[in-house]
């Protein structure tokens, strides 16, 4: 069933309710007029632990890729002591094909800021850093403006209307990244915030216990926090009216897919853009409905359904009913929902080229700490480039799969999830489009000179 009225995009014109061209910056005053900051005022009168309980009850799962329940994360914090406690908002948004958070940042930043303030209150975090990727220049300026408005209106700073948090006046600062995918990984982000190279840390200790500046730190995605005001204003039960619950009869321990989700569509479609849907919407409806179907004269072949790191879904699978929810991984043999931003791949684009593109991405963005990620991703890139040129062999295909599957956290030798992404991206592409790979390796473009002549390799025995 299509979403009747938008939730996160209430103030951001989006088809079918509005027009992309009418999107504009919603400042403090306009935001406040439409119930804005009402949730914050409500929360200011609540016990922090009751806010966490409400978010827990909503079963709000992280929108940054991993789907970890936000309320549960918030309850991992140690008891208060004398020192500072931090919130880091993940606006690094660097997963290829992902461009959802930037819409909220550009057009409705106060919904994010309100979520930030509520989270700070609930978790008793005195200082928040908004870690925004370096390439978001315009977005950075817009968000700085929104932060300034929030200070003017006493959301933060001295005499903030929520009072002192953790015995300090609450503050929100923007921290600009400088172009490194790995700084989206939560501990890479923390290192970068501390002014170092973005090398992910070995966990435990988890950031909630020892994060930024060795103090308790919560890290959440922009969209996750933007959901919080709606949960708090209307209640968890209202919020759970959206999305997809548990299968009939499943116990409450089974994680569900409640709420709406921002979904970007890009690639070979008529109307690319960021849309809002209930979790559980059919991929094919997102493509043919929201994005108005394939570009004229193209047939579709595959989708990166949640950023490249989640792997691919084929057109046959999409037609058989792939649904965009947190169970997509288990049901359709990929890593998960990821960022729910879809790249639409048409028939004429080679999947070998797509795999090569992914491998290049990982080899370029690997931070280099773990051998199998650093070397493996380079090797994958070389192998795939060779195949794409037509110089691959059948043996390369097996090597490719073996190499990819040796790179993830299942063998358990990497520090962060980047190499899992590489593993899943490459493996699902190769497995689901085996035919294309076989076709490029079975027709070598060059005959090997070494086996001409008498059949003896040149130089053998010399």
């Amino acid at each position, binding site marked *: 069933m299509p979403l009747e009225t938008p939730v996160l995009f209430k103030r951001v014109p989006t088809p079918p309710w509005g027009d992309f061209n009418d999107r504009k910056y919603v400042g403090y005053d306009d935001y406040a007029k439409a119930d804005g900051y009402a949730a914050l005022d409500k929360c200011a009168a609540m016990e922090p632990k009751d806010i966490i309980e409400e978010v827990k009850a909503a079963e709000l799962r992280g929108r940054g890729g991993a789907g970890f329940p936000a309320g549960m994360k918030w309850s991992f914090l140690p008891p208060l002591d004398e020192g*500072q406690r931090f919130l880091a908002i993940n606006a690094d*948004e*660097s*997963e*290829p*094909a*992902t*461009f959802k958070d*930037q819409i909220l940042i550009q057009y409705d930043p106060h919904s994010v800021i309100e979520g930030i303030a509520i989270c700070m209150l609930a978790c008793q975090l005195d200082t928040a850093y908004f870690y925004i*990727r*370096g*390439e*978001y*220049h*315009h977005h950075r300026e817009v968000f700085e403006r929104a932060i300034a408005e929030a200070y003017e209106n006493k959301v933060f700073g001295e005499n903030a209307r929520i009072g002192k948090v953790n015995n300090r006046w609450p*503050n929100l*600062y923007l*921290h*600009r*990244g*400088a*172009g*490194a*995918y790995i700084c989206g990984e939560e501990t890479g982000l923390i290192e*970068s*915030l*501390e*002014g*170092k*190279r*973005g*090398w992910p840390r070995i966990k435990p200790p988890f950031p909630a216990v020892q994060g930024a*500046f060795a103090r308790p730190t919560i890290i959440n995605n922009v969209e996750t926090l933007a959901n919080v005001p709606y949960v708090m204003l209307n209640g968890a039960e209202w919020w759970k009216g959206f999305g997809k619950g548990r299968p009939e009869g499943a116990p409450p321990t089974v994680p569900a897919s409640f709420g709406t989700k921002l979904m*970007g*569509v*890009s*690639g*070979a479609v008529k109307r*690319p*853009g*960021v849309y809002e849907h209930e979790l559980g919407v059919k991929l094919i409806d997102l493509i043919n409905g929201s994005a108005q179907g394939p570009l004229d004269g193209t047939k579709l072949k595959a989708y*990166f359904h949640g950023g*490249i790191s989640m792997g691919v879904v084929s057109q046959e699978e999409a037609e058989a009913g792939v649904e965009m929810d947190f169970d997509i991984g288990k049901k359709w043999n990929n890593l998960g929902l990821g960022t729910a*931003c879809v*790249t639409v*791949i*048409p028939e004429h*684009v080679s999947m070998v*080229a*797509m795999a090569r*593109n*992914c491998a*290049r*991405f990982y080899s*370029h*963005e*690997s*931070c*280099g700490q773990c051998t199998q990620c*650093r070397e493996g991703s380079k090797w994958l890139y070389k192998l795939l480039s060779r195949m794409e040129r037509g110089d691959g062999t059948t043996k390369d295909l097996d090597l490719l799969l073996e190499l990819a599957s040796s790179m993830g956290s299942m063998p358990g030798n990497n520090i962060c999830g980047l190499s899992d992404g590489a593993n899943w991206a490459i493996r699902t592409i190769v497995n689901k489009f085996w035919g294309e790979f076989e076709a490029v390796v079975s027709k070598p473009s060059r005959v090997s000179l070494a086996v001409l002549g008498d059949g003896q390799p040149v130089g053998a025995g010399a």
Partner: protein
Amino acid sequence: MAWLTKPSGTQEIERRDEPYLTDEIKKHLDETYAHRYPTRRAMSMPLLHEIQEHYGWLPYQALEEGAAFLDIKPSELLDTATFYEEYFTQPRGKHTVWVCQSVSCEVMNEAAITQAIADKLGVQPGETTDDDKFTFMKVECIGACGGAPCMLVDEELHENLTPQNVGGILDKAPD
């Protein structure tokens, strides 16, 4: 990235008498950023951005001055500077062109855009034009996939590029 080692150990550092990190820049950094973080080292990224804003790149002498200002070792600041794609430890052109090469852009024919720019500027990705006007870079997803293929020219985003319209966009960059 970080693990590509550079021969900086044997490199002569070009020096000038006038400091890069002027009192004015220091004052600005101290007033804007110092209170934000519990450590001075955490000002590394804002400081590097600031130096680069002024000089276009990060001269080694400036890194030394920056490190002294932050009370860290020059190597620690260099470590940060060399890790991130946006920091240049070598001079670059007046304008930097960043063409996205990730999946959505490749699907939308980024190859033709790259070719058109290479032809127009007469340089390959990673190079700077002879007149030092443009440095041409390829980057991974810049978060504007809905407008693929796309690029940044300095801080400005250009979407829905075609081999026909990129030339005009580059022509508009001031000398």
